[in-house]
């Protein structure tokens, strides 16, 4: 059964910011345990996860662990798996905005449920605090404890929807200014999207009519996974897409969102030429699908705060936005030239933002010289050799559609180039974000909001991002 013994939030340094016990914890010996010490033990384990000793996978034997010890010092930090057993208890955790949301249980719980629950708690915290940071949590701790009491009872998930929780909560959020420099993953941070609206939901039990703007944000977000071979062919490609919303609508009107009429779900349904074909899709709890099969329309009452209306997945081929074309030439045995061309194939009216191309270099690299070629005027770009990481990082702030950029990297090596040296170059990865563009052609035909006297603002955005966008050499 999914029952947690305790829940806690830790800062990146391991300080307990919030903790809550639901059950007595029992150690392996059967004795009661102190939550504080077991959380500390948990944090050490996460921080210094050692694959060779604790491996959830078939860990190599002790002897090798010892042999590795010298290497371990300069090895990159290893991510601990999200679920592991420690002194008779199972710990599950996720990381959000640098914070660890974790819990312990001694039952044979459903790990997916527990992780989803942790994610949900993090989301609710964010909804109520406006942003997720150590400071925001500390400032709002009484509110958050109040929320936690409603979200979990005896370790069971209870109410976890932002607007239902409002009925039970009496404290008001205290707004903190989000720290912009904070390292955030994924969608946050780069361009404005629904997720980045740092505004807490309004609290107060009664109607939120006058408290805020009457508006709703809709993002059609697509993350691309593309793998190119050295000669530019696409080996593997897929789109992870979702429609993400954040609602500040007053009242709670019914919404109707219509997608492309020619949307096809699942392969092998015969004619799909020109249509948008999704391999699979799934929906949020709130969605009523009665009209989906007929008119591809979803009706729902939007929960407050941020939520994902639907997720979809496309594995069939699509037109990739960027093509990566590398070429390596050996000038002399100790001199290599990497010629790299990146072509943006999206329409000229769109552009790729914050395009970052990383080219790993061989171990034997001695000196690096980068030369950016033939760029049109006004292209802001930089190339930098990061010696400690052994990569060249090439950044283009705004990469216009239907254009191409090239760069030449001249390397000199400590020792003559071998087959192995060549192999150490690559894979080249590309990170980018394309505003107001999506690859799949999935479209929101309309978003109708029932019973609207002052028409709410509707912000519909399309964003395409790279997830794993890599070219092998």
């Amino acid at each position, binding site marked *: *059964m999914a*029952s947690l013994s305790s829940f806690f939030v830790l800062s990146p340094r391991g300080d307990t910011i919030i903790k809550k016990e639901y059950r*007595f914890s*029992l150690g392996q010996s059967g004795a009661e345990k102190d939550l504080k010490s077991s959380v500390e033990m948990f944090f050490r384990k996460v921080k210094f996860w050692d*694959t*060779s000793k604790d491996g*959830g*996978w078939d860990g*190599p034997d002790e002897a*090798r662990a010892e*042999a590795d010890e010298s290497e371990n010092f300069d*090895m*990159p930090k*290893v*991510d601990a798996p*999200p*679920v592991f057993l420690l002194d008779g208890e199972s710990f599950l955790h*996720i990381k959000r905005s640098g914070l660890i949301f974790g819990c312990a*249980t*001694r*039952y*044979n719980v*459903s*790990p*997916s*449920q527990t*992780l*989803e629950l942790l994610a949900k708690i993090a989301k609710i915290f964010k909804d109520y605090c406006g942003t997720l940071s150590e400071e925001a949590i*500390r400032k*709002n*701790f*009484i509110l958050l*404890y109040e929320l936690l*009491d409603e979200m979990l*009872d*005896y370790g*069971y998930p*209870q109410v976890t929807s932002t607007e239902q929780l409002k009925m*039970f909560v*009496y*404290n*008001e959020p*205290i707004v903190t200014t989000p720290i912009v420099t904070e390292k955030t993953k994924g969608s946050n941070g780069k361009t404005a999207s629904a997720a980045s609206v740092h505004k807490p939901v309004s609290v*107060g039990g009664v109607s939120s009519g006058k408290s805020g703007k009457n508006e709703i944000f809709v993002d059609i977000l697509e993350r691309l*996974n593309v*793998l190119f071979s050295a000669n530019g062919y696409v080996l593997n490609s*897929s789109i992870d897409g979702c429609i993400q919303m954040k609602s500040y609508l007053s009242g709670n009107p019914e919404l109707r969102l219509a997608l492309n009429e020619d949307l096809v779900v699942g392969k092998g349904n015969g004619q799909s030429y020109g249509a948008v074909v999704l*391999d699979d*899709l*799934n929906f*949020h709890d709130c969605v009523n699908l009665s009209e989906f099969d007929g008119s591809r329309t979803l009706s729902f009452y939007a929960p407050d705060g941020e939520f994902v209306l639907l*997720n979809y*997945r496309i*594995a069939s081929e699509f037109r990739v936005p960027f093509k990566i074309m590398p070429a390596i030439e050996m000038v002399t045995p100790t001199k290599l030239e990497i010629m790299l061309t990146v072509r943006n194939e999206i329409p000229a009216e769109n552009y790729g933002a914050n395009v970052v191309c990383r080219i790993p270099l061989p171990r034997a690299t001695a000196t690096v010289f980068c030369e950016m070629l033939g760029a049109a005027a006004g292209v802001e770009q930089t190339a930098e050799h990061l010696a400690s990481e052994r990569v060249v990082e090439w950044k283009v702030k705004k990469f216009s559609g239907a254009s191409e950029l090239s760069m030449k990297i001249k390397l000199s090596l400590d020792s003559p180039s071998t087959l*192995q040296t060549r*192999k150490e170059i690559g*894979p080249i990865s590309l990170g980018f974000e394309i505003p107001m563009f999506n690859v799949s052609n999935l479209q929101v035909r309309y978003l109708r909001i029932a019973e609207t006297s002052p028409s709410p603002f509707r912000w519909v955005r399309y964003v395409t991002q790279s997830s*794993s966008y*890599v070219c*092998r050499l």
Partner: protein
Amino acid sequence: MPSKPKTAGGSDSRFFTTQKKGETHELRTDLHSTDRSTKVDAVKKVIASMTVGKDVSMLFTDVLNCIQTDNIELKKLVYLYLINYAKSQPELTLLAVNTFVKDANDPNPLIRALAVRTMGCIRVEKITEYLCEPLSRSLRDEDPYVRKTAAVCVAKLYDIAPELVEDRGFLEILHDLISDANPSVVANGVAALSEIAETSGKDVMKISTSVLQKLLAALNECTEWGQVFILDSLSKYTPADGREAEGIIERVTPRLQHANSAVVMSAVKVILNYMNMITTEDTLRTLTRKLAPPLVTLLNSEPETQYVALRNINLIVQKRPQILENAIHFFFCKYNDPIYVKMEKLEVIIKLVGERNVEQVLLELKEYATEVDVDFVRKSVSSIGRCAIKLERAAERCISVLLELIQSKVNYVVQEAVVVIKDIFRRYPNKYESVIATLCENLETLDEPEAKASMIWIIGEYAERIDNADELLETFLETFEEEDPSVQLQLLTATVKCFLKAPEETQEMVQRVLDMATEESDNPDLRDRGFVYWRLLSTDPEAAKAVVLSEKPVIEDDTSKLEPELLDTLISQIATLSSIYHKPPEVFVTRANIRSVAEDDDEEYEYEDENDVGVQPSADGPVDLLDMGGGGGEQNGSAPQQNGDVDLFGLDTGGGGGAPAAGPTCVKTQVCDGSQSGGIIVNCGFMQLNGKVSMELDLQNNGQIPVTTLAIQLNKSAFGLAPTNQQLAFNPPIQAGASGSYSIGLTVTPNMMVPVAAGAAAPPTVQAAIKNMANNSVFYFAANFTLESIFSPDGALDRTAFINTWKSIDDTKEVYSTVQLATSNIETIIQKFAATNIFQIARRPVPNQPGQEVVYFSCKTMTQHSFLAELTFKEGVSACKICVKSEATAYASLAKEALERCAK
């Protein structure tokens, strides 16, 4: 709604200022203030101190006073304070009981629920009687918020006072809540029932047809969390037939499209478990097709969820490879996957790889082998080798990829490749020796014991094909003393092999190695092996050849390495932590109540032991021996707790097990061949001696390390067995190559019973997990249980009862067979039966059948299943017909087999 006062600072963080002296006093004054906002602020400050770990219990009564208010904000704050202390300082909270009882009648549902919720958290038995009244009212409250809180409270109460919950009929009310109109109430009702079912081992869920319909209806109405609870309950239900299974699957399938991965995983679990019941090929094929997309979609979620999905998929592809057979490319690693996801993806890839996709997979693996992360690279390299071992036709391609990687000269790549190439040699002997030359070029890069040992094994095994084998070994021998024991052992063996193949050149070398192994080493394994070789070589070189150079069994592909029984257990545990650890839940779930049962038993035994020892301290051993091990068996169950006596017990076991005792003997069968258990071969049997049930183990230690302490766990079985002591201490330890035995005392407890599904036969096996404490390795086995081991001494029925029962049991519940016997003497059989608690009821000649006699017997298991038996004999014939009748149809066949065994 009153607005929160905005004081200077404007944030809760101001409450975190450090507490100076006198502050407690100040707070106390504020708490008694008549001004509400001062009060609220004071309570907030108290809670702030509490959350940073300060003890504010001295303010308890002051805070409690504030609860007498109409202000909900203040009341909630006080409850926030109380719920924290309810757990840690229950005796304090008792002061508030009256308030709780009063608040449970408050007109505001929020307050009613708060009171019930907080009250349930106080783990003091005294409070339970106060709790029952409000609880039973709350369970029927008009407000769903109160009902849902009350439902959870039942689970809390069950933890403190299970009898009370049963007596008050709360379980029935929970059952009614499954059909509540409110989804959250349904969710909590199901959650509470499931937890009670799991902790108590009782089937409180009682899924009947009507409950089933309720659950399925609730599935559509419920919250996402409730859906998970319902699906998990459904997965434990056994449908009556394939038709019902299909019906349920149809209702569950839409859940596969849920955005919550937990709902998807639990739906997958239900469908997988029910698929066993479905026989129509078409339906199976459709289901197989439907399961793939949602599983693949899980791979696009957050990495944490992906990890859970991958561990589960790992099991699913072992059970039903068809589901994802065309999906291998979805498991290819992305460069930004976290390491734990990449490692799991590799595991799945290697399980899905086949002739059709091996080319594609090898290209991928080769790429991975050039990445930066050392662990990932290693695993990629060894995966290439595993492809070779799995797919004979692709072996050559794999080896060429490995050779290419060896050319990179990257230290750890080479070592990993050497290790896996050794395995390839063991899979395809004498086939790919051409690569040895390449390996030999890289000897100097090897610095890890495993790689060195592998390389040395290869040299020894193929010494005749390597021109300078002796020279190569010679270079390794230079550092013999510093090497890891595993390398030393391989060096010893390889040198001896080399000597047997080419005695002339290596005479001196083998002498030196034997000297070093037997005289200079402290390692007993090495010395033993050295002496064995020495003796062999000096007495009969031909025999030595036969032993050392004998043909070795070809190793198997280990990519589907879970044993079928374990796999089935784990498949039924999909979407639980069990499926993450790939261990049955008993191995890691520690639970208070089960342990307390075990502890009680231990104490009892200890007491008996002390008595024995006290009365006859020195004669203990011999007496037991005369007693034919009767007492020995009993004491062995708890022997490990008494260190001083252990040697004697060791003797006893030998005596008890070896001597053909008059009582029942124990037939042991091999349950574990050593391949999964680090070389420990286990023979296992069950017996009952003087009323004590025991599990008898014979261990043959073919591993490298001595066996000193093992821990055993039994899975729940149809027989409800639990070890009285989980630690098996061997004193003296079983050295490598030696053997020993152990008798584990067992108790029969309902907690460990798995109810047998209606219509099915009870599975005859008991699954066990043994952990070797020396290296923390765990292995599993399943042993066939002999039902007579739990025949209880009170199994005799009087004649009338027997006749009535016999008549009342329907003839369809009858199983029979004919057995060959060693004797035609009926008396012998009766005696044999009596020794195993099978009691004679009556004996009479068969009317109109001269020379035939029937004998009636009854017996009963400690799990309270009764069996009636009729044995028909014919004069002068050494055989009889056995007929067993019982209401416990699931066990009838097992009882019949038990009788057959006892009669022989």
